[in-house]
């Protein structure tokens, strides 16, 4: 295992898993993200109040301390020890199913994805719904989850010019990943459809609907049902 530790500013430590051989596959990405998540959980308990934040990424994590540590070498040793004992995150038993309306009336980018992939709208929807996704990390916006596992046939680069406003609930893809916009925001991902399930609830202890390592599937719903769910709570 090849871990690289480096200091980030005065009070953060960056940990990178630099195992080149595993980088390219979807499985490796999920495996790596799960390790990073487990390690964050372990280090939160281990470092307690000293830790301001533990931020996992796909192949790295960042530990932000409250104050600049006076004991960098000891801290680095503790982190390295944690890398060997933390193990893996247990996979959540259930898969979250998110309804998606792919109707063109919602102003999506399906046409552009058709052009890029050479697939029909029906094929894109079928493939998008057939795959199982894993939350690799959150970032960009509160509740914005990077979902790994997008089928290769759907891989599409970001838009050359980002859209000024992507509405909250947009289900979008870029490169090999998929995401749901939690808030109205500028964005460069191609929107395939919309979900009526909110991604954020600031009044809840569980702020975000999607959590690290969670598994997600998308299910196509028609426009009428989508609108009825948007209007009222789900039956």
């Amino acid at each position, binding site marked *: 295992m090849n871990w690289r530790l480096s200091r980030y500013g005065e009070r953060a430590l960056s940990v990178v898993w630099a195992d080149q051989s595993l980088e390219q596959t979807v499985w490796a990405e999920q495996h790596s993200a799960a390790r990073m998540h487990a390690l964050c959980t372990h280090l939160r308990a281990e470092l307690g109040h000293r830790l301001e934040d533990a*931020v996992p990424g796909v192949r790295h994590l960042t530990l932000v301390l409250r104050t600049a540590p006076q004991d960098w070498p000891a801290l680095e040793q503790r982190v390295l020890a944690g890398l060997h004992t933390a193990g893996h995150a247990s996979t959540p038993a259930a898969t979250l199913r998110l309804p998606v309306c792919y109707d063109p009336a919602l102003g999506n980018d399906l046409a552009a994805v058709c052009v890029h992939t050479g697939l029909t709208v029906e094929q894109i929807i079928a493939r998008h719904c057939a795959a199982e996704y894993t939350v690799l990390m959150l970032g960009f916006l509160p509740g914005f989850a*990077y979902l790994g596992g997008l089928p290769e046939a759907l891989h599409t680069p970001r838009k050359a010019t980002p859209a000024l406003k992507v509405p909250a609930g947009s289900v979008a893809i870029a490169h090999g990943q998929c995401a749901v916009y939690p808030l109205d925001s500028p964005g460069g991902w191609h929107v395939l459809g919309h979900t009526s399930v909110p991604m954020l609830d600031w009044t809840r202890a569980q702020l975000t609907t999607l959590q690290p390592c969670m598994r997600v599937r998308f299910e196509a719903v028609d426009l009428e049902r989508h609108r009825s769910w948007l209007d009222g709570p789900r039956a």
Partner: protein
Amino acid sequence: MAGWAARVSFEVLKAGVLDTIQDAGRTGHRHLGVPVSGCMDLNAMHQANRLVGNPLDAAVLEITLQGPTLRSHCSASLAVCGAQCEVRVNGRLHADHATIDAVPGDEIQLGALRRGARACVAVAGGFDIDPVLGSCSTLLLAAQGGLHGRALMRGDLLPVLRPACVPSSHTLPWHNLRDAATQLLIVHTRPGPDSAVLPASLLRQFFNQTFRIEADSNRMGYRLQSIELQHRAPQVDSACLLPGTVQLTPSGQCILAMRDAQTTGGYPRLAVVDDADVNLLGQARAGDSLRFFRVS
């Protein structure tokens, strides 16, 4: 009911450019994508709170370039610290960086800011704001925290928890934050976590030039104008982004992350400004010149 609410508040007669409630920020939720936020210049917050006898991290009103006009509906001491602010009480000029005793009916005009971009307004007894995830800071992009999740607007009532008057004996000195001769902002900076994957010549270029802060700069970040940095940096994975970090875009432009910056970024993190000097950057305005002074 309305009368009671009005008695313990400040009413916004005229909004400033960007008036938001801020405190030390919202930590512990970066892994869910929640930015830290908080005062752009934490020193200004500490100073203002110290003058009115509040805990140093109590929520304050952060004002930008031009402050609001407020009507006091309570008796309370205020302090304005940070950039120099033209303060008028019922039209009479009043010193900043000193306590102001407001009584009901007073009109407090917080005018143009000079020598800096932001000031913090503290009120003795503190603003009465419900925290979100442990912080009162306004997060504009998510419309959360602060007063209704947004900047102050005309007609808003800014509630005060326990309005109090404090002895107004002392004044805090105002510090010139810039190099006296050149008016340059000079900030202590270290190489960033991705500097190892970038050519060494790039860091040298970075530390050897003067940057100008571009117009479309805000609480999320500043765009820096300079000679384009030549590089063929590999694309890096999205990773944690701390306020004070300079990222290098594929076109060779430097972007400086500030308090409302997103929690992760996908561009190489070239350099990081020391915490103390991020406050100094919080006082920078568009057009200001800036140099990064290497400390490690």
